[in-house]
């Protein structure tokens, strides 16, 4: 099952992400965002990774998804942290908690791709269709 696919958009990057559960959907969204940001050249040992915990509350699933992505984007753009692995993730209506392992960006191990300025609200949507979750997200690049 594909986790995400990019959709045509003139100026920015639009993506549709999928998951069998909210946990999978949020995982797919994080992977899609980092696929826009960086490409991995070489693996680094896990021992050098930094663990970050994320806890968010929001009234809608859309806002919760944006809050989760915003947090990861902040770590990337302010601290140069690249998502390596989602260690734990719990998502339900209204709140989420997660623990992620992040690597420090360096040009030997990673290639920087697009800079994402923000996760926008434009067309942002989380839907459950026949017991599968999907979301549309537009990144401003």
């Amino acid at each position, binding site marked *: 099952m594909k986790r995400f696919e990019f959709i*045509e958009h*003139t*100026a920015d990057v639009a993506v549709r992400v999928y998951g069998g559960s909210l946990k999978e959907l949020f995982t797919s969204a994080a992977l899609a965002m980092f696929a826009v940001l960086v490409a991995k050249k070489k693996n680094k040992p896990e021992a050098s990774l930094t663990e970050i915990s994320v806890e968010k509350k929001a009234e809608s699933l859309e806002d919760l998804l944006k809050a989760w992505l915003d947090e990861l984007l902040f770590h990337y753009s302010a601290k140069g942290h690249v998502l390596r692995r989602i260690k734990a993730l719990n998502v339900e209506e209204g709140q989420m908690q997660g623990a992620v392992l992040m690597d420090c*960006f360096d040009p030997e191990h990673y290639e920087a*791709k697009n800079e994402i*300025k923000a*996760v926008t609200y434009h*067309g942002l949507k989380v839907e459950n269709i026949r017991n599968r979750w999907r979301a549309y997200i537009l990144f401003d*690049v």
Partner: protein
Amino acid sequence: MSDLWQGPLEKIDDHRWRIPKSYKAGMRVDGVIYADEKLLKDIRHDKAAEQVANVAFLPGIVGASLAMPDIHWGYGFPIGGVAATDIERGGVVSPGGVGFDINCGVRLVRTHLTLAEVRPKLKTLVAGLFSAIPSGVGAHGAIKATAKDEAEILLKGAAWAVRKGYGVAEDLEMTEDRGAMEGADPEAVSDRAYERGKAQSGTLGSGNHFCEVQAVEEIYDEETAEVFGVRAGQVAVMVHSGSRGLGYQVCDDSIQTMLKCLTKYDIHVPDRQLACAPVDSPEGGRYLAAMRGAANYAWNNRQCLMHLVRSVFERVFETSWQKLGMSLVYDVAHNIAKIEDHAVEGRKRRLCVHRKGATRAFGPGHPDLPSKYAKTGQPVIIPGDMGRYSYLLAGTTTAMEQTFGTTCHGAGRLKSRQEAKRTVDYQKLFKELEAKGIVLMASSRATVVEEAPSAYKDVNDVVEVVHRAGIARRVARMRPMGVIKG
């Protein structure tokens, strides 16, 4: 994009098309798009025109929801969108009408050097610029600013750099708003925004940001060109960058606040990205105070970048930048909201003018212009694409009358990034540029492909429309010689 936009576009004249306010319940004014028949075809290929209609929902909007000929699909506002709201009549400010890259803009630096003098040293020059100007994702600035400096930058803009020796007072004179908007409040900027902007002063960024060495190849108006200090065969440098991570975060923080304002002030807009609040509300005031800080950060950033450019020229040509004649022609913002006075239905009104991918184009005699440009109107700098050309235009009285003193900002995207990736080959593009004598250095090949000339409209077509419509006039055309990309 296979589906064409099917909404109404009524011809006003050869350069203007109306989306009547009857198109959608909730539109307060008409939409007006500046375009010719050729550009109009491209415009129908995405949802930009629908976004022009959506902007017409904003409370207090006056005149029309405008779009420049480089219009393309954005989020909330279209890129190339212009909207002015009447502050005394409940006019709103919308962070989406400015965009994430607050005060993304362009500056043009002229030189005394000729094409023939630069050509033999072009590769050294471009390599020097590429190594001196931090670009690409995660780049840290060569300019060191402490936390205390950051607060000063938000208040004083480019004057901070000048105080540090990264420029001269005359540079400020030649910058829109003299490089700093009044009314910035560093306290209105979140800690996260500071953190995202930290150490990014004097960095270019990625995406469509660039630094280009250009040759002036054609002059359309000798008299104005002389006032602007440009002549055919001369080399100039164009810098395109913005407020970096700080501005992105200010916008994002503000949209979250403004979403709550939609309920609080009973505002109905068709897209959450159009979230807004009355200009004179606490939320509107706070956004403007933070936005001005981010705008000032951007002016300082471009001032620092120009300092780096001048330093590289000094090393390569072994003389001072003053002797090389590297004066600033002008610096313009193209993502900004400003409080300005304009005539609406014959009466002077205080408006909040949003320019989202649009450039201020004040005409002759406007009191905000430096005295040097009082008779010509302000210089308007229009970057094209890395393979073709860029333009230098001048602001006009017609722009003051029709578009709140605004014109286009660039070529405007034509192809999506996906489509560019499918259709552009990096090696082939590199060779094509080389054949044209253009030296390119970039941090990311992916960015180069996405920013390929074929991904953009021909800036000639865009400039032709604004020139014919009279909302700016052609002064000079430049072509790229050396390109630095993030």
